[in-house]
């Protein structure tokens, strides 16, 4: 079942407007323009589509909030900042099927009553930027964007905006600040962007993959979509497989698939002997090798003590030291913390220091308890998701592999010989 990669995986498909239209592209926009926004919202709600950027918020509800917001003008923003380590699905869509995204954004604009959209694309995606620039031009030429789209009285334009290398700008409110030409630091929520967003106006902000589902939902109906995959979290998902796996790549599969199937059937199996998996990038918690039966949807992974996030499935084999990986993950968050709030700015720094000490034979018996406390404080008091999730991977590594940490701390021994175990 392919919803998003149905064109991309077709031989000869080149993502141009001609090829998109020949696969039925922009039909959904035509249909949408003849419906009322309320009809579209009702289909979207029936589909039970939830956001694919990580937070899994119901898309229909988000659009409805923005539609019902009184302030004008309204905006549609596509989050193409793809930065969670291990995630490379949005790049695939942006480079190979840009019109699917453009069509979806126009439908979003029509539904919520916006006439301006933005695609915030990460600065390092040069090729995708060029592809989108050309695609927007072609869409305007074909009257799929611009004034009086497809003969209707609806007008909508899309501007591209390049990020400049900051993971936190993937967080929706930091993204909006960045889009306004500031440094990207998160805003206090509420108010949410659907009420107070870009330039303090109502803004619908969605991930590339989330939006890419919309044309097919319009064409086939919300009920059709809701029957794909897990009943409580339906649809397909683009899973990004990377790390110690034989066939890394993006796989679009129904949400009910188990982690084991994903790795073995699609990923060609583990490269080496499995030790652990991060199912949702470095913001998620490690699953141990005996948890592979978990279903790869949002509620199931939450129940398993982790999260699906952006579905960046990172496979780790037994040649890696968990203390070393915990250190790596905290280094990432320390580097990327925007510094706005104290728990995250200081917490990520301290956590990193403690793991570095551990790896240099300077760990102390109290470290584990201290890190656990730090994790709780950061989860409870950080201002945005970056700080709240910063200790997930490290904390779960300590929970699932306690003896490795124990050996580093008391025996000053890294059995795999990876940590230096001396001052460097």
């Amino acid at each position: 079942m392919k919803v998003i990669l149905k064109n991309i995986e077709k031989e000869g498909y080149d993502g141009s407007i001609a090829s998109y239209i020949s696969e039925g592209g922009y039909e959904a926009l035509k249909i949408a323009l003849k419906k009322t926004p309320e009809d579209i919202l009702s289909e979207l709600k029936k589909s039970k589509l939830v956001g694919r950027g990580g937070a899994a918020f119901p898309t229909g509800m988000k659009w409805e909030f923005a539609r019902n917001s009184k302030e004008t003008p309204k905006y549609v923003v596509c989050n193409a900042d793809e930065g969670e380590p291990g995630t490379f699905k949005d790049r695939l869509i942006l480079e190979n099927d840009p019109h699917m995204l453009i069509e979806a954004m126009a439908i979003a604009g029509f539904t919520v009553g916006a006439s301006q959209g933005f695609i915030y694309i990460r600065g390092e995606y040069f090729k995708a930027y060029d592809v989108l620039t050309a695609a927007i031009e072609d869409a305007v030429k074909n009257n799929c964007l611009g004034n009086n789209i497809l003969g209707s009285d609806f007008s909508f334009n899309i501007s591209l905006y390049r990020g400049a290398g900051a993971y936190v700008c993937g967080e929706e409110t930091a993204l909006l600040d960045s889009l306004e030409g500031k440094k990207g630091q998160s805003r206090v929520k509420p108010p949410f962007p659907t009420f107070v967003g870009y330039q303090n106006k109502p803004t619908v902000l969605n991930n590339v993959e989330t939006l890419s589902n919309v044309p097919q939902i319009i064409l086939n109906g919300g009920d059709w979509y809701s029957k794909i995959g897990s009943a409580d979290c339906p649809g397909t998902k683009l899973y990004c497989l990377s790390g110690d796996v034989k066939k890394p790549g993006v796989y679009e599969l129904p949400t009910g698939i188990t982690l084991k199937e994903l790795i073995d059937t699609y990923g060609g199996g583990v490269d080496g002997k499995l030790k652990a998996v991060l199912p949702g990038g470095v913001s998620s918690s490690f699953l141990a090798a005996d948890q592979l039966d978990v279903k790869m949807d949002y509620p199931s992974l939450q129940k398993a003590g982790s999260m699906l996030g952006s579905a960046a499935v990172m496979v780790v084999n037994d040649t890696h030291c968990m203390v070393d990986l915990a250190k790596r993950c905290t280094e990432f968050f320390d580097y990327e913390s925007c510094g706005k709030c104290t728990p995250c700015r200081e917490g990520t720094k301290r956590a990193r220091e403690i793991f570095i000490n551990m790896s240099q034979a300077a760990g102390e018996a109290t470290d584990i308890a201290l890190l656990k406390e730090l994790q709780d404080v950061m989860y409870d008091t950080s201002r945005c998701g970056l700080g709240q999730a910063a200790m997930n991977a490290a904390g779960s590594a300590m929970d699932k592999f306690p003896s490795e940490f124990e050996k580093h701390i008391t025996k000053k021994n890294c059995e795999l010989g990876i940590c230096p175990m001396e001052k460097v």
Partner: protein
Amino acid sequence: MSLEKCKKQLETILAGCEGKRESLLPCLHAACEQCGHVSEEVISYLAEKLDLPRVEVYSAASFYSMFSLEEMGKNVIRVCVSLSCYLKGSNKVIKALENELSITAGQTTPDKKFTIEPVSCLGLCDKAPAMMVNEEVYGDLTAAKIKDIINQYRQKEAK
């Protein structure tokens, strides 16, 4: 001097945005692409044109990893050091680059031809370990591949 190199581009961007603050990031991108960094002069120029305090321009320029206040090499090598690449040996990539260019990660060669920048995930995790040189992407890196890539750029420079 560095302002002269990018002034035309900055003027075009500023004119397109009616001097609005949203044009700050596009301007900083242009400055880095044209002159390898955001100079004091450029900061003052943008502050004046956008009617912003200098510190606002400076803070944006220093916040984002793609902008640099110090002059970067003509070829910026961005090496991913995030987890998927780390699992597949990004440490070896860094070492190979350091050996090849005789600088340490984060530095620029004395001839200003190359900069090695360790960066967060580049969305190339299925080709880990991965890096970018300017706008080009390179994946499944090995020490031998890195030697070849650097040599290609050296030859381009020599021409």
